[in-house]
């Protein structure tokens, strides 16, 4: 596992050398960086070389490999983000970073599956955040390195073109599975729900959660044709009228509360593809895994800890990663 955390001066030098960078770190450092081919999101939590790390003094750096043919950095807003897939290169991948709790975050979360070109090209990324002590004091930000502009509303995307004998592949590691409990579905798409269908019967969802004493550290899990997709509970003040989530629930999807995981760190390790650490270009893991699992979970993969992960759409409590695969032929 190589070095991933760098000082401000080291990052500044890399930018001056023309390196193409994906960055994560504290706003106070990112604001001072010079213009260049980089995008960034704020966060002080990382899966670093030595394990889980919280620091405001260093920046997590992903440097694109030299074989990346072309890079286009674009900023989007709530109106233009539906074009993110249409703007993707014919062969490559796109990295998106969105500030938590902005309108673009919510709009992307709800609408990404209906965007033109959804899932057609690799789209990976994360939702930027802040130190948990700074919640409601400082807003999460993303940075367009070309302009050095900091955005608290919108998204920055780096579209990367790859040579035709290489392809980007996105994977996820989700330690949660559907439990054996009730089938849960929702009346409408949204980040909150007052009512839900429990085994086909409509009832007040907050009352159901309370009655069943559902552990809110465990997400709701939907089975997308074998991919387990989480929706995490957002803790609020009791009693709640509505149950809130960190990603939207979607109507027409059958959820179950997740099974408890006895050894989450061991499960992360068991689910990591062997030798993956050396082949992953970028990865990120959910802050809820950082908080609930303790170490951030993984043993080989490093990356920023995030307020939401993106693998084609918004995910929760999941590790997402991107690898570059060599093809024995050209696409």
């Amino acid at each position, binding site marked *: 596992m190589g070095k991933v955390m760098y000082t401000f001066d080291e990052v500044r030098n890399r930018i001056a050398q023309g390196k193409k960078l994906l960055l994560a770190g504290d706003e106070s450092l990112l604001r001072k960086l010079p213009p260049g081919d980089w995008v960034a999101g704020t966060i002080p939590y990382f899966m670093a070389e030595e394990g889980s790390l919280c620091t405001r003094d260093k920046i997590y750096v992903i440097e694109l490999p030299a074989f990346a043919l072309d890079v286009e950095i674009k900023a989007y807003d709530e109106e233009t983000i539906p074009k993110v897939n249409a703007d993707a290169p014919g062969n490559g991948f796109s990295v998106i970073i969105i500030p938590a709790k902005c309108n673009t975050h919510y709009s992307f979360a709800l609408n990404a599956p209906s965007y033109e070109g959804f899932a057609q090209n690799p789209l990976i990324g994360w939702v930027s955040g802040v130190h948990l002590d700074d919640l409601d004091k400082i807003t999460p930000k993303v940075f367009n390195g070309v302009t050095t502009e900091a955005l608290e509303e919108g998204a920055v995307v780096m579209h990367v073109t790859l040579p035709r004998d290489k392809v980007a592949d*996105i994977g996820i590691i989700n330690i949660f599975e559907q439990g054996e409990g009730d089938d849960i579905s929702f009346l409408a798409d949204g980040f909150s729900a007052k009512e839900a269908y429990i085994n086909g019967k409509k009832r007040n969802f907050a009352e159901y959660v309370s009655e069943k004493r559902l552990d809110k550290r465990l997400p709701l899990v939907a089975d997308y044709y*074998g991919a387990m997709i989480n929706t995490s509970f957002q803790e609020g003040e009791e009693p709640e009228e509505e149950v809130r989530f960190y990603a939207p629930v979607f109507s027409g999807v059958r959820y179950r509360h997740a099974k408890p995981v006895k050894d989450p760190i061991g499960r992360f390790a068991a689910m990591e593809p062997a030798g993956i650490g050396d082949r992953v270009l970028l990865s990120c893991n959910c802050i809820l895994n950082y908080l609930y699992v303790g170490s951030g979970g993984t043993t080989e993969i490093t990356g920023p800890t995030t307020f939401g992960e993106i693998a084609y759409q918004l995910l929760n409590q999941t590790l997402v990663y991107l690898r570059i695969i060599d093809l024995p032929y050209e696409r």
Partner: protein
Amino acid sequence: MRVPPANDPLWTEIVTGKARCDFEFLAIKILLGTLGRTWAKNPSPVILRECANELREFFAQNADLPSVRNDLKRLFG
């Protein structure tokens, strides 16, 4: 690799869930999650055909990827 034509009944069976496959490619699973939901909310023949066509088009555009080739073999032999 040849991708079966849009009128192959397996495409609609995948969308409805009648045919299940242990797909390797994550994007297929994510896309099917959305297509399955779209059809479930409006289970008409027109919507089913649109979803099946979108799925088939996805396979056609990505048929040169190793994992998609593996998934095509799993589906169609």
